[in-house]
């Protein structure tokens, strides 16, 4: 560091002059005033046009629509708040499995990209390049259309060892199964929408994860693998005991960003009819006309999920980061 000439010329840290403080304070005040003025304006405009405003509808009005699937039981008598809750749960229901699978896929693809076997290496690169360079929305739609066009009709579902697979999705063997004129329905179903959204998010995030893993491993200096070789560790042992533990430290910050963007990308589910928070809030917005409020709910849900994720990952990062010794 001391080689850089700028480091020598750098003056000692001086207290911030009063003028700069005043400028900052004035700017902050101006911004706050602007916000207050906009909020005030919105309020007047809403009142002028006799538009209802406020978040009271969340707790007072019953939503009256249905949500196709999810963890949170939801009936049409339940409030909008519960609908939003069910929507938020559905967002997690897609994001969490997608992240888990994407991480596993990314580890596999990332390690494969460094394999000695040229076939495996090229395959891994090919998959990563293909998936990474097609817009996610296109992939979501493509996988969904393939599933709904190619799988058998619900009435002719494939029945394999308790599982039923059809255009309606995958019925899991635990839980009850009922025959209806419209095919078999079960208590535990992974819908086609869920399956295609999780698949496409897994592929997409997995491809980016692979690059993060590869870069992390390659960032470990050559001397480390040469030293392990000298200690007669096998390639696999070198990877597992030397390269991955050190490489992952570098990989965690970009991996965190990937997690956050994957959570946000799950909102593309609206295009294929998956009832996540965006879909539910959109319906609520249309029924109540409270656009600002519903958008605020969507934003807060993503903000909360992502802040929690970022907080956890920051702690993880602090634990594994290279310590000065």
């Amino acid at each position: 560091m001391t080689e850089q000439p700028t480091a020598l010329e750098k003056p000692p840290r001086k207290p911030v002059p009063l003028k700069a403080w005043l400028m900052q304070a004035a700017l902050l005040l101006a911004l706050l005033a602007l916000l207050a003025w906009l909020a005030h304006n919105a309020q007047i405009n809403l009142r002028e046009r006799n538009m209802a405003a406020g978040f009271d509808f969340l707790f007072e009005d019953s939503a009256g629509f249905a949500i196709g699937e999810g963890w949170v039981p939801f009936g049409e008598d339940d409030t909008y708040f519960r609908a939003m809750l069910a929507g938020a749960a559905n967002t997690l229901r897609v994001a969490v499995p997608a992240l888990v699978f994407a991480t596993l896929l990314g580890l596999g693809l990332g390690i494969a990209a460094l394999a000695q076997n040229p076939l495996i290496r090229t395959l891994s690169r090919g998959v990563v390049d293909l998936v990474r360079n097609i817009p996610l929305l296109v992939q979501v739609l493509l996988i969904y259309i393939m599933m709904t066009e190619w799988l058998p009709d619900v009435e002719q579902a494939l029945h394999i060892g308790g599982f039923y697979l059809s255009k309606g999705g995958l019925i899991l063997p635990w839980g009850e199964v009922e025959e209806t004129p419209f095919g078999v329905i079960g208590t535990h179903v992974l819908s086609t929408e869920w399956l295609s959204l999780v698949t496409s998010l897994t592929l997409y995030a997995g491809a980016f994860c692979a690059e993060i893993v590869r870069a992390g491993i390659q960032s470990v200096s050559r001397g480390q693998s040469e030293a392990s070789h000298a200690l007669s560790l096998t390639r696999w042992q070198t990877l597992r005991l030397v390269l991955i533990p050190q490489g992952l430290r570098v990989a965690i910050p970009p991996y965190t960003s990937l997690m956050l963007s994957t959570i946000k990308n799950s909102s593309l589910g609206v295009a294929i009819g998956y009832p996540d928070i965006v879909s539910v809030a959109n319906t609520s917005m249309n029924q109540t006309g409270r656009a600002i409020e519903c958008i605020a709910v969507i934003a807060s849900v993503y903000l909360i999920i992502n802040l929690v994720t970022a907080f956890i990952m920051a702690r993880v990062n602090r634990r594994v980061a290279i310590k000065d010794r």
Partner: protein
Amino acid sequence: MKLAQTLLSGSLAAVALAASAPAMAGKVLDGVKQRDQLVCGVHTGRAGFAQADGSGNWSGLDVDFCRAVAAAVLGDANKVKFVPTSGQTRITALQSGEIDLLARNTTFNFTRDTSLGLMWAGVNFYDGQAFIVKKRPNLTSAKQLDKATICIDAGTSTERNLQDFARNNGLTFKTVVFDNAEGSKQAFTSGRCHAYTGDYTALAILRATDLPNPDDYELLPEIISKEPVGPAVRRGDEEWFTIVRWVLQAMQGAEEMGLTKANIDEKAAQSDDVAIKRFTGNGDDIGKSLGLDKQWAYRIVKQVGNYGESFARNLGDESPLKLDRGMNRLYTEGGLVYPLPLQ
């Protein structure tokens, strides 16, 4: 410092932008006249109501209504900018002042009229919610759809209607809600959904023009809701609201009086009927109280045609859709269209 300056100039620009916005909440008519163009929110593409052809020419019942307003207010039916809006963006587009008028199959109901800050100028089409299914033996009623999967478009009143229908009849449905009609259509035709619910007319048009084998599909007889759709405007400008309301009445009234695009000049010159004289601008002044000239109604019929002509051209006999006028006939012919007296 540099950052502070950038931020400051940025926020000043934002203030300037924000300050210019409320000006649009003023008199809509003045705004329309000033820009010499009507900005009309329509469907992104629904045959018969609003559809743009390959060269960008719009046609449809709602499009004709926009043109009629432009003919009345600006004197030229072509001075319209059509803004395609989705089921979700339409309300916001009108509330925010992005469009002057919304003519996009929008259902006129209590909640919307009382809490969205909009006013409906009337009803230009009477519709109802129905179901379309792939034909299957023994399926003759929507009440047999218990436990079926049903596709719906987001942002419509249909979601709630469906739930009410399910509850009243003790049925359970699994719903898949798409944010665009293309998505619902694909899911329905691929077999992901057993039924697709929406406005009867929209489904009939879908069946006639968009489905690969129309004979494989049928509409079930139940109409589960009332969907009176019509043009809406923002609250807070009664003058504009009144103009839009009377444009619709004039279009429908012209049909009742037998005034058509082809015969209006002749009738204007020859007829002694007081009502026709007034309508064509040769009698009492019907424009002054609206802030328009005497001939606004005449221009609507001359340039766009009456309601019946517009219906026939876009949805009825002269169109590929060949829809029956049903409830949308004049009251004199057993329908619900009852034009208010233009006196």
